[in-house]
């Protein structure tokens, strides 16, 4: 019993149930209104027909009166009343109400002559008892005429209509209630289906998706939106998982090497070379962690408060200045092509680092290249910082992989295969940081062909600041 009441309570408190009942109530109201109006229309129609009958009868009577006086009208009265089942009531009376002809024993009291319809309950020896619709007419000073029609036939029709309506209502209502409950059930089931998917995903089954029926109704749209959200969540989690897996994997090799060096040092003594090797491994580990941290922070949008107005010509010239000798040593020329006076609000250290990573990527991967060009320009889509080389480039289908965190391209592309001395060698973190920095600025990284070579574009949204703006005040040191 308690279980039943609890279930009932749950059913009543469920918003879908409440909705179903509201819908049912509205339906009931509408059906009742429709039936009521049918009834009223029928009633009006029947009354109009009765009135038309009475008026016709009166006209015939008056015509007979005018044609032949008392004799003629009395004959007509008798002739009409002789027709059985006509439902007529006729009374020809003198001025005081004494009957002269007709089927009514006497003129009812308080009746005024004129065109006002009266509804009276009448009875007589030759008159069936019932409700009658009557008109009283003064023929002349000494004669009155009452004509009328039994309303009971119309009433019978009306009550028949009423019964029919009630019967149909009695049939429709349970059907409507059933339908409403069914629809409520159906919508509840579809919502419950979506909720079930969300629950399954919460429980760890990340690849579950809400079923779509392509009807594009609200439930289908809801399922679509939920699925899009789940796709995004799954992608983010996948990326995170890849980062942690790869970080664990990539940390393992320098750590293993370090472990080996320590072990060798324990058995055969420490020399300067062994210590240098250990220090290099540690530096590599620290750099990996710092870069991974920086990517996470940039992705989280930390650092926007440190944007400063920066002259791109100056920024790129400084970058070329720092990396020039390394490029020269690798046999590449590092050129800068920037229009003067392009001033942009940006995170200077991070953009410097992004440019540096792009250059190092070019140095490491662009086997056979002869030049790296740094350039910048302002276009309708934003401000582009471009690092282009004339090496072998990256096939378009690998562009996304190149930008994903830790993504490694075919090692054959790497000029040095990620030598131990090269701290970032083969780590793939470099371009991922470039992408994260671009996103921090609300922009993106585009990889394209330089015909030949790789053309990496850091596209920052917006327009250059007015040239009058003071150039970035370099942090004095």
């Amino acid at each position, binding site marked *: 019993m308690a279980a039943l009441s609890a279930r009932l309570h749950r059913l009543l408190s469920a918003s879908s149930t409440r909705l179903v009942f509201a819908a049912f109530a509205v339906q009931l109201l509408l059906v009742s209104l429709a039936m009521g109006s049918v009834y009223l229309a029928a009633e009006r129609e029947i009354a109009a027909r009765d009135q038309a009958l009475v008026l016709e009868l009166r006209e015939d009577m008056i015509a007979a009166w005018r044609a032949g006086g008392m004799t003629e009208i009395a004959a007509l009265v008798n002739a009409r009343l002789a027709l059985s089942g006509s439902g007529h009531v006729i009374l020809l009376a003198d001025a005081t109400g004494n009957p002269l002809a007709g089927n009514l024993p006497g003129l009812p009291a308080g009746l005024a002559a004129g065109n006002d319809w009266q509804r009276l309950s009448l009875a007589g020896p030759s008159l069936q008892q019932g409700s009658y619709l009557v008109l009283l007419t003064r023929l002349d000073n000494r004669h009155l005429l009452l004509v009328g029609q039994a309303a009971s036939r119309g009433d019978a029709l009306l009550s028949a209509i009423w019964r029919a309506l009630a019967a149909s209502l009695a049939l429709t209502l349970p059907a409507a209630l059933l339908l409403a409950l069914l629809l409520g059930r159906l919508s509840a089931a579809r919502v419950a289906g979506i909720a079930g998917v969300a629950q399954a995903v919460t429980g760890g089954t990340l690849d579950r998706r809400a079923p779509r029926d392509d009807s594009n109704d609200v439930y289908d749209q809801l399922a679509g939106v939920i699925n899009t959200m789940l796709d995004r969540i799954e992608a983010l989690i996948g990326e995170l998982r890849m980062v942690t897996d790869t970080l664990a994997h990539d940390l393992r090799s320098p750590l293993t090497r370090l472990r080996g060096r320590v072990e060798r040092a324990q058995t055969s003594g420490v020399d300067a070379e062994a210590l240098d090797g250990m220090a290099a491994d540690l530096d590599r580990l620290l750099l990996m962690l710092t870069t991974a941290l920086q990517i996470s922070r940039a992705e989280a949008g930390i650092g926007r408060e440190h944007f400063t107005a920066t002259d791109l010509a100056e920024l790129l010239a400084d970058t070329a200045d720092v990396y020039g000798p390394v490029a020269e040593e690798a046999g590449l020329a590092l050129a800068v092509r920037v229009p003067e006076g392009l001033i942009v609000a940006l995170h200077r250290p991070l953009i410097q680092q992004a440019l540096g990573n792009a250059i190092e990527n070019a140095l490491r991967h662009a086997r056979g290249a002869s030049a790296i060009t740094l350039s910048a320009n302002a276009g309708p889509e934003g401000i582009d910082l471009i690092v282009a080389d004339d090496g072998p480039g990256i096939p378009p289908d690998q562009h996304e992989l190149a930008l994903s965190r830790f993504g490694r391209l075919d090692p054959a592309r790497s000029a040095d295969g990620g030598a131990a001395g090269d701290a970032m060698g083969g780590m793939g973190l470099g371009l991922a940081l470039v992408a994260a920095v671009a996103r921090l600025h609300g922009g993106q990284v585009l990889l394209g062909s330089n015909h030949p070579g790789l053309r990496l574009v850091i596209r920052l949204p917006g327009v250059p600041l007015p040239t009058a703006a003071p150039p970035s005040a370099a*942090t004095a040191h």
Partner: protein
Amino acid sequence: MSQKILVVEDDATTAAFIARGLDEAGFGVEQAANGRDGLFLASDAAVDAIILDRMLPGMDGLAVLAALRAGGITTPVLLLSALGTPDDRLTGLEAGADDYLAKPFLFGELLARLKLLLRRGNGATGPVTTLGFADLEMDLLARRVRRGGRLIALQPREFRLLEYLLRHPEQVVTRTMLLEGVWDYHFDPGTNVIDVHVSKLRRKLEEGGEPSLLHTVRGAGYRLGSA
């Protein structure tokens, strides 16, 4: 009299490591293990420089720094932090630190930066037009460099690098100090960017067969010195 350094660091191992190193380098060392004591010692004792950990129990390193600066104490402060991103550095400098070093660090780096801070503290030198070391002369106005009588043709970036080294003679300057001081770069490029710069400069300085002036200091950086 030796200069006195206040070390405010809650991690005992790190504090002992720094104190031992400073002691070996000839400094007097005061220690505090929390922010409150650190603030007290910093405002009271005559210390020449403060090494301040950013995350401290009781009172946060940045709060200590803010309190010091608000109290008009301008003792140079080197902020130590496990947070090594450019933003953390900027936040630290904005709070009034004179330098910022991310953990883990090499002691050589800490010492070099500390010495730079101490020298900056008492070096109220006027504008100079020439710099020199041993037989090396730099004319800042004519932007000319000579070694002995030999004129050395330097690219602008090599000139800036040498100028920085000449302004810090006989001091260890680390790679990151050079990146910050010469190029205003505040991250580790990871490759041997600085080594290439230095070796190119060194080649030009010793082209005439002169003795080496630019020395590599293992585990730290470079030093301009006569031996």
